[in-house]
């Protein structure tokens, strides 16, 4: 028979243990980092090739596009929103760049700018609808996902554009460090992460992004122009999708209307959530997202190496997202 004292003792020990675990997982990037190391340990045991320098540089190249998309997605999710349109907006930007450069003879740099500008315009559209019309981000971006998807296929006429001018391929070029190849695109991605880490953690604008996602009404009452913050977040997110489009073009050396529709779109959201950013807004870091994006890249690469079919990778990604969101729900649940 259990005495009441023992039960109480056991309960308090349990709650202490839970509290400790909760603190460890909440400590911003520790959880994601442990998950990344576990995944890498698993795949290096299962496959000899995984830890080879050449394979790891391949992982980074695969992470590059999703990683940059996920920066914009992080900003949006920090404001308690979500952007389902990131992948298809990127696809449209990529088609605009390549079609203008290849078919219309537009100077490559101008074509790049117009493609990026298209993505920025979609960011403004998303942000404007969320901010000034007051629609839920989920519905707005579900709508723009379809609009961008349709425009991509209409404008490209379902054609793939190849034979791109060399300026469009710059970020796909590689240089060598210690036997491993790195692309300039990976460098650009890391620079962008450093930049957004700085902006989010060291500037007033970054702090306002967190405040708007955390308690929008409190932010408004302290005099923060919350509409401006939201609109700027979606616009900057559009810009990162444009940059991601540029990297995708450089990596694939193609303008492909079928790019970015499922894999990149879901992977970007998965990267953010795996990186410990809360879907409830106001908590998270881009460094976490970088780790999250790397986890996604490691899973896709590792599962391919050990011979798991692509369709099972979708299965795993789906399970990963739900697991990560569950952890978020349990750790960040609002205190009463």
């Amino acid at each position, binding site marked *: 028979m259990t005495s009441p004292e023992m039960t109480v003792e056991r309960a308090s020990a349990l709650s202490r243990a839970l509290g400790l675990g909760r603190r460890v997982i909440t400590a911003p990037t520790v959880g994601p980092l442990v998950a990344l190391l576990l995944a890498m340990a698993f795949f290096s045991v299962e496959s000899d090739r995984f830890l080879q320098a050449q394979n790891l540089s391949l992982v980074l190249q695969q992470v590059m596009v999703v990683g940059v998309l996920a920066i914009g997605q992080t900003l949006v999710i920090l404001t308690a929103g979500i952007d389902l349109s990131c992948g298809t907006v990127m696809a449209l930007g990529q088609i605009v760049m390549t079609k203008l450069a290849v078919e219309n003879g537009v100077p490559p740099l101008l074509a790049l700018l117009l493609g990026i500008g298209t993505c920025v315009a979609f960011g403004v559209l998303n942000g404007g609808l969320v901010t000034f019309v007051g629609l839920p981000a989920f519905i707005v971006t579900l709508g723009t996902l379809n609009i961008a998807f349709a425009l991509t296929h209409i404008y490209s006429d379902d054609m793939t554009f190849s034979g791109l001018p060399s300026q469009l391929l710059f970020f796909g070029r590689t240089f060598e460090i210690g036997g491993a190849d790195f692309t300039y695109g990976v460098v650009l991605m890391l620079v962008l992460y450093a930049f957004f880490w700085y902006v989010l953690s060291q*500037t007033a604008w970054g*702090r306002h992004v967190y*405040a708007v996602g955390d*308690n929008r*009404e*409190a932010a408004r009452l*302290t005099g923060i122009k919350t509409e401006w913050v939201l609109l700027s977040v979606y616009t900057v997110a559009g810009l990162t999708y444009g940059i991601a489009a540029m990297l995708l073009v450089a990596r694939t050396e193609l303008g492909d209307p079928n790019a970015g529709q499922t894999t990149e779109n879901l992977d970007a959201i998965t990267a953010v959530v795996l990186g410990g950013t809360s879907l409830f807004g*106001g908590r998270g870091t881009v460094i976490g997202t970088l780790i999250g994006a790397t986890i996604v890249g490691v899973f896709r690469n590792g599962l391919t190496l050990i011979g798991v079919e692509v369709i099972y990778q979708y299965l795993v990604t789906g399970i990963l997202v739900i697991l990560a969101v569950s952890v978020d729900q349990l750790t960040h649940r609002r*205190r009463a």
Partner: protein
Amino acid sequence: MSIATQERQPIFEARGLVKRYGHVVALNGTDFDLYPGEILAIIGDNGAGKSTLIKALTGALIPDSGHVYLDGNEVHFKTPQDARSAGIETVYQTLAVAPALDIAANMFLGRERRRAGPLGSILRMMDKKGMKEDAGQSMANLGIATVQNMGQAVETLSGGQRQAVAVARAATFATKFVVLDEPTAALGVKETGQVLNLIQQIKGKGLPVILISHNMPNVFEVSDRIHIARLGGCAGVITPKSHTPTEAVAIMTGATTLQKG
């Protein structure tokens, strides 16, 4: 006009404020005075026009007619931001803090300071260290000793401590007066005591306080004068010495009328 009123000029006054919502008259030409260094309570039944009055005074809504004077000069606040720029800080009923941000970040939210030199002017880097130090200083000045670490997330604080952060923020940045809208409504007895203590600390700094409250014992404990709102107007202004809480409730509900003297 008595000598007393000639000597005491209100720091903030309103004359003939009217606000209508369709056929509903929320304010029917009410007057309002706040004198230097006092704690003025506003009490009134639900729907008596307390909130409308305070919103009309702090720019949260624009009255249909009437005049508002700050230090003798007429002001027209169109947004709460206008009132804030004029030195009036308001703490709202709902705990208006960002829970995931730390105490210093909440204290300086919307007023972040940048570092000196090119780091601040070009790179727009915040002066986190300076803001943390100043936040700690403000809290210490107000006698809030229970919270030591300004880097602590607000969500780890108790309800009373969170409200203390909001009140301290208002007290730190107000130059004219502080408005507290039901600051203790969500708090327990002990925490209420802490916030009341804080209100007296603000008065001690020489800042007048407008306290909107339902809680009669609290009102009688801290206020110097009590403005009783009733049916969109003012049923009278009393002091805790001139009337009892029971009489105040009677005036508030219309059971008694106050002879204006």
